């Protein structure tokens, strides 16, 4: 823990700059990240002289999230309320310019058909337009019919746990299968902390060292958002090694290169699906900082 503190105290803070946006209908989940000059001042790590080494190995893990791409479907109560408020607003509203024009044109048509119509008696000269408001509306309707929005939910893609484009309405977390001790476990990608690194750099290294690297992520802060402490079983404990402490850092996915191998041991899971693959003690700590949705 002393090492982590040393790293945190010695360096000046990075300036956090990120720009994010959403496209409502288009299927590209790529977010427009115009990250304006994520400049980082030179880090000066002051070595805090440790008299005794800490018995814990420190690791930093990254909680990479893909944020929802489309808005979630409304609850039936929400839908009814939405319809009601829309109707109330419509009834209370005044006519817009276009609607006024429609009414005037209709009125003029009626007067023309009346027979005793003298075009010189028209008050405004604007009435000599060739294009009526109704024609404009018809052309707009035609344009709308030509537009086909992409389907919101694709059942096939949803089932595939390794695809980034599943469940567009929810936020997904990246899980990687990593070798811990003697067994392979599904956990958030982690890497061991080394001297001279800050914890955040370690987390970035963890992300970059994944077999299917190609993620570009924006870390949300320099401070970790969660901790998981793991004590080794009594048989494996020594004087200098009691267990591991894992610090979690939150990051948001900005883009992914399409050259990712599909057989890489990676999964994108929703919060509710986490407990199927991850150990319960670990899930308990991790669920605390993953927000749903």
């Amino acid at each position: 823990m002393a090492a982590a503190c040393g790293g945190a105290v010695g360096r000046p803070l990075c300036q956090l700059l990120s720009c994010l946006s959403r496209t409502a209908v288009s299927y590209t989940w790529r977010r427009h990240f115009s990250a304006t000059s994520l400049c980082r001042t030179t880090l000066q790590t002051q070595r805090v002289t440790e008299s005794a080494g800490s018995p814990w190995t420190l690791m930093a893990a990254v909680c990479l999230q893909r944020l929802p791409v489309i808005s979630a479907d409304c609850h039936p109560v929400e839908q009814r309320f939405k319809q009601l408020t829309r109707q109330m607003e419509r009834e209370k509203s005044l006519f817009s310019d276009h609607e006024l024009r429609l009414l005037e044109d209709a009125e003029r048509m009626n007067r023309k058909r009346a027979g005793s119509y003298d075009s010189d008696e028209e008050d405004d000269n604007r009435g000599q337009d060739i294009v009526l408001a109704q024609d404009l509306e018809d052309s707009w309707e035609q344009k709308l019919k030509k537009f086909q929005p992409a389907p919101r939910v694709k059942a096939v893609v949803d089932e595939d746990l390794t695809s980034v484009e599943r469940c567009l309405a929810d936020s997904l977390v990246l899980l990687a299968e990593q070798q811990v001790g003697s067994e392979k476990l599904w956990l958030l990608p982690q890497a061991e902390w080394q001297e001279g690194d800050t914890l955040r750099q370690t987390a970035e290294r963890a992300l970059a060292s994944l077999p299917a690297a190609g993620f570009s992520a924006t870390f949300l802060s320099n401070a970790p958002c969660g901790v998981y402490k793991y004590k080794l079983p009594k048989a494996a404990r020594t004087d200098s090694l009691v267990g591991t402490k894992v610090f979690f850092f939150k990051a948001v996915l900005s883009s992914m290169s399409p050259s990712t191998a599909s057989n890489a041991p990676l999964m994108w899971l929703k919060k509710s699906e986490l407990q199927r693959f991850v150990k319960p003690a670990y899930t308990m700590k991790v669920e605390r900082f993953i927000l749903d949705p």
Partner: protein
Amino acid sequence: MNFVFRKLQASFTQQAFVFSQTLPVCRAAPSVQCPAWGAAFVNERQHHSMPTHEIGRWKHLMKKRVQKKKKDRFQMKPIVAATDSAYGTLNVQVSGYDMTLVEHYTQYIHNLCNQLGINVGLCYALPTKTMEVMLMQEKGTKMYVDAVLKTHERVVQLISLDTTLCPVLMDVVLKNQPEGVKLSVKEFTEADFKDRFKERPEMRELMSQINY
């Protein structure tokens, strides 16, 4: 009854006599009445003939306020520098085409910051930018106006945001971002402050003439 009155009178006159004897003694003692320069004791009220005089007085209990000169120019508040555990002055800019969404999202961010105890400095709006989308006419060379898009922008300024609170705030704010709204978090600089003002071309010319 008369004898009762007489007795009372007698007793009264006796009392008066006692009083008149002791009156000089009383006078020498510090008087109960306040000195001339005003009520030193707050609970003292003058005018025993008007018992409720100055009963509602409260201005004397408040601190003295210095009157602000109305000719003060709109100054920029000093930019807070970043420390090891907190960011300095941050600008959270929300922009989009739909004004209701942008405004409601800004209000949401502001209320969230208040609830989380984050110090919000300013909350202002930048001027609206209008963009006209011109389409080429089919079978013609003239361009006609297809749509008019207005970009609205609102800014919430956060002062000394704690590093530990930052990921929490950012996560919540990002997950609740509505469609069609852009979010950007930047450091606040002088240039951002100057953006809020209109250009004054004549002033610029005169200044350049002076400096020349």
